[in-house]
């Protein structure tokens, strides 16, 4: 065997190993998700069977029909939870992005006293585990009488998200060359116009991805929501999942079905925005 053939064989072998490794990783990542979807479609007996039944025997949409079909008849008010989740996550995302964008832009473009200290301060807030805040928050909110309101959760989620969005958006604005805004100003823009006409569209994909992060954080948050909500007034979907557990039974099928319902909008949002996350949008602006 020549050296050339040997090295070709080694390369092929490595290619196969690489593919197998990737497949294994994909299985580990995807299996839980697939299992949840599968379980939402089959009866509890089959879910709980030992040894596990991998190939489903019967599939039905009963869980979904029950969820949306008999609202207000003693079943779980998924519609209300969904609405609460949407209002809370949506509003807190919009606010967090608005604040994060202003802050991120300021950090990226301006020099001011105490800038690094302030930035570090924002980052440090990220190191506090969210659950640690639950008791103090609960006491303060109880005194203020805002427990079980949309406002309470929106405020918490904005506070949780702002440092992160600010940090991300700061990075995206840094990637937009300063000359862009300068060129726009020479072309007749005010500072404000230069921002909206040139810098914002260029940082847009980055801001959109920050929005996804912020939305998903709020959408999936459980620990604080479980403390600060009480009823259909403000309960969000993750907290609502608990409704499927009762004293002696757990409705695994229903829970999985709700999980699927929860994942759907997040997935849809990510897909919609991802189409706009065209990388390399700024290429060609300046000599690379």
């Amino acid at each position, binding site marked *: 065997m020549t050296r050339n053939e040997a090295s070709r064989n080694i390369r092929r072998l490595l290619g196969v190993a690489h593919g197998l490794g990737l497949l294994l990783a994909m299985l580990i990542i995807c299996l839980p998700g697939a299992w949840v979807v599968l379980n939402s479609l089959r009866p509890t007996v089959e879910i709980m069977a030992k040894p596990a039944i991998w190939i489903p025997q019967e599939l039905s949409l009963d869980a979904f029909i029950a969820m949306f079909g008999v609202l207000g008849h003693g079943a779980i008010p998924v519609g209300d939870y969904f609405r609460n989740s949407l209002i809370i996550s949506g509003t807190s995302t919009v606010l967090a992005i608005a604040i994060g964008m202003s802050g991120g832009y300021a950090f990226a473009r301006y020099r001011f006293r105490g800038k690094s200290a302030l930035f570090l301060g924002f980052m440090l807030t990220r190191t506090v585990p969210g659950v640690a805040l639950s008791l103090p928050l609960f006491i303060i909110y109880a005194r203020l009488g805002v427990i079980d309101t949309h406002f309470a959760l929106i405020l918490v989620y904005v506070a949780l998200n702002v440092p992160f969005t600010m940090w991300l958006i700061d990075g995206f604005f840094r990637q937009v*060359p300063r*000359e*862009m805004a*300068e*060129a*726009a*100003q*020479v*072309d*007749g*823009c*005010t500072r404000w*116009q230069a921002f909206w*006409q*040139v810098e914002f*569209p*260029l940082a847009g994909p980055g801001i959109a991805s920050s929005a996804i992060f912020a939305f998903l954080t709020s959408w999936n948050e459980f620990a604080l929501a479980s403390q600060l909500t009480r009823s259909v007034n403000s309960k969000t979907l993750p907290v609502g999942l608990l409704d499927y557990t009762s004293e002696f039974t757990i409705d695994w099928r229903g829970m999985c079905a709700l999980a699927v319902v929860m994942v759907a909008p997040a997935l849809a949002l990510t897909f919609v925005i991802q189409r706009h996350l065209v990388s*390399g*949008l*700024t*290429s*060609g*602006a*300046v*000599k690379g």
Partner: protein
Amino acid sequence: MATVTLEKLVKRYGAVEAVRKIDLAIGDREFVALVGPSGCGKSTTLRMIAGLEEISEGTIRIGGEIVNDLPPRARNISMVFQSYALYPHMSVRENMGFSLKIAKRPPGEIKQRVDEAAAILHLEPLLDRRPSQLSGGQRQRVAMGRAIVRHPDVFLFDEPLSNLDAKLRGEMRTEIKKLHAKVQATVIYVTHDQVEAMTLADRIVIMRDGNIEQVGAPDDVFRRPATRFVAGFIGSPPMNLVEAEIADDRVVFANGDRLPIPEAYQNSAAKGRKVVFGLRPDDVYPSGHGLPSGHAAAVHEQPLKVSLTEPLGNETLVFFDFAGRDWVSRMLNPRPLVAGAAVAVSFDLANAHLFDEASGVTLARARG
């Protein structure tokens, strides 16, 4: 009508003075190049004129009006950036028409003016492309197109060609010169490339450490450099500059080599004075292979050893060891020379320069 006047202009960054009280008057439709090494304050000066940098002290007037505190958009200027700074999310047409769109001009007028500029710069086939789909030279042209569409009073160029390769740079230089002839506006052009400055400008401003060293026509700064720095900066290959002392009617170099005192400096070069002797490569050549200045009496001939040659085709750069260092000379009509060969070398002292060693200022008396 747009003259640009700088009066006692200062820019400070904290304790650092980037521009130090410079005065400059630029005439209407004049093409002025600011040259100097990096960090000399030329770009800062340009950015102050554009309104992108605040002025620490002094005054800037455009068309007679003080513009110190006017925002860039109110100065009726256009700027071409070194990085081009094209808007990547807009097509070429949108890039060029952007300033007019912001000024809320009617679409018909925008189209007409963009087409006009595109015709001047041969950009018509590219109008619907994005900047990312253009080559470096094309982007450069679009950046210029964006500038001329506005019909500004003053064009500001900030090292516009430094990102292009040598061939393209030569072509674009010609374009810019043609463009200036066509649009008839005042141009302020910043570059670190003295060749660009020499070929393009009506007048050259040579800056160093935030000061202006000399202002003059290209020929002027080339033939009559005011300081040692200008002498060394303008011209390629650079002027031979060597420290020396005046003694016994001779210029004596540190290693004992000597040359006659150039006639123009007979009076100003007192005995014992420390000087810097300067002679361009064009004025020192293997005898018979140069362009003599015509003052036969001023030519000093001396046999020297060749240390290195750089053939360029129509001419050869020949390096000699003299006065303790390598001197560059330009040999026209070259004949083959090898290192180590001894040749008679002509020093055409009619074009020699003497500068004061301490101050670097020329010892030539002001000549009309």
